[in-house]
């Protein structure tokens, strides 16, 4: 994984404060191109805040963030999107009064590069990109539905399709299976595995450990804004600190057993 001297994403000493609270505290890590980094940690650990900071919606107070060597920590969120970072949100975001296809079209038309003049119609390639993104998550049939009327699972799928329609180099997913049932989680897992095969670089936040462990090459656990573990998914289940503040003995054992069985049920 260290073949590439310049990682796709490099964070150094990144901090974000809300008043006296350090939501993210001098965090440093790299993500190599093609890699999947999983981020876990208890509620309020600062995971979502880290995404806010990387995507430019809520800029960092300290530290540097580089995408392929270019600083992005002071770049506006729309530009971060153009540079190639797309994100899904923990709380289902969408354009409620737009149709499913229009939602994805916004990304396909505006998300890939800055358009000096937006034009009077989108071109054919943009339309096809939007259609492919919907196909990717299996929502072609719902293209004409109003987003307001969608159930939770489809909103999550749509967010994913919208993110992919910006043709990102780095995809940030914030709890893509939070609140879903096991069948839906399996479906989402297939989709993310498909993305991994395409070589999309991923950072994934998730509380559902079997999802996190199965999809990540490497795992980072946050606690009070700091990294308390960075390493293999396997090592996670034996780390005393992680077991103490996050997993608990029971969950750690179940994960160990599942991994030993070659399958991550749990």
């Amino acid at each position, binding site marked *: 994984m260290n073949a590439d001297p310049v990682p796709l994403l490099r964070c150094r000493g990144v901090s974000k404060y809300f008043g006296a609270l350090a939501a993210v505290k001098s965090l440093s890590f790299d993500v190599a191109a093609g890699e999947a980094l999983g981020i876990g940690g208890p509620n309020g650990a600062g995971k979502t805040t880290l995404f806010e900071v990387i995507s430019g919606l809520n800029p960092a107070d300290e530290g540097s963030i580089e995408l392929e060597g270019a600083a992005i920590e002071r770049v506006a969120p729309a530009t971060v*999107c153009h540079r190639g970072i797309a994100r899904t949100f923990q709380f289902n975001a969408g354009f409620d009064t737009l149709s499913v296809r229009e939602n994805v079209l916004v990304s396909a038309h*505006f998300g890939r590069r800055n358009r000096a003049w937006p034009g009077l119609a989108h071109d054919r390639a943009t339309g096809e990109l939007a259609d492919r993104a919907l196909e990717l998550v299996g929502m072609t049939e719902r293209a004409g539905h109003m987003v307001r009327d969608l159930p939770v699972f489809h909103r999550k799928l749509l967010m994913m399709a919208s993110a992919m329609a910006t043709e990102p180099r780095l995809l940030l997913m914030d709890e893509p299976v939070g609140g879903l049932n096991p069948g839906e989680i399996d479906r989402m897992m297939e989709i993310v595995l498909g993305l991994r095969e395409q070589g999309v670089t991923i950072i994934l936040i998730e509380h559902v450990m079997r999802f996190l462990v199965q999809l990540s090459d490497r795992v980072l656990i946050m606690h009070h804004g700091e990294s308390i573990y960075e390493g293999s998914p396997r090592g996670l289940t034996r780390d005393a600190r992680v077991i103490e503040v996050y997993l608990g003995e029971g969950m750690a054992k179940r994960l160990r057993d599942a991994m030993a069985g070659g399958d991550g049920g749990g």
Partner: protein
Amino acid sequence: MSGWKRDLPIGLVVLAALIAAPAFGLPRFWITTVTVFFIWATVVSQWNLVFGVAGIFSLAQMAIFAIGGYTTAMMGLYLEWSLWLALPVSGLLAVVFGAVVGLACLRLTGAYVALLTLAIAYILFLLIVTDTDCVYYEGTVCRSLTEGWKGLGRYGDYGFRDLFGRDFHLGNYGLALAVLTLATLFSFAIVRSPMGLAFRALRDNPGYAVSRGVSRFKYQLLVFALSAFFTGLAGSVYAGVFSVIGPNVLQLGLLLFLLSMMVVGGVGRPWGPLIGAALLMLVDETLKEEAFAGYRNIGLGLILAAVVVLLPQGLAGGIDNLARRLARRGGGAPGE
């Protein structure tokens, strides 16, 4: 783009009927009234882009209109320009003014935009009515730049009196109809373009839109500037039609009358402004009659309240829903 397939034929039929109406003996009084309808419908159709499509609660639209009207009047009066030359200049100055208002509103949301834009309109109103410094004397009469309360007059017209003699009102009717037609086409084209998509995305969820590459700065400025052009032209046409323009165009009552048109027609609906303006003008003219004396404002208020309660998406929304239901019952595909 299936929307055009429905809207273009409807638009052409309405346009043909409006062009033919005077030839079929529409009385002079109604020709003048419909001309005023054209002007207000133009204003509301552009306001709808900002207020309905982009979801920005701007109340600056009549200030932009006044900029257009006063520009035309002053160019006619002080530079002795033909109003035809002043017309596009008024539109462009309105765009500049609109963009400045948009810039001022950039960091605000919701009700604060309404407050700031209302304040801007009120300042413009005060600047005009307190303008008493003499810029020149006519005999012993002091003339100020805007003539304050009195308003500006004697700057000429669009030349229809010379052209058509006592049928000059037909020229005004034609000009106002032409501007409304272009303004309507413009607003439909914008709503259905990627720009319209950006405006609606920012309206629904600005944070999310920004993270999908839509620049709030750019598109908020753009919607203010674009919607100002035909608003400025409408102000210019108004000045030419009435041969006088005063600060009364900035009064709250008129602003609320136009806002009601948008709400009754259907906020954010492409046909809403036309339907709302037509209905409220009609009701207003009817209630002006001697028999209904005193019921004018109550009547308009009742209609507004009824629509808000019974048809929250306005008449255009109600018609859409009805059409969809009929199509479904008829077994036809529920068209978009």
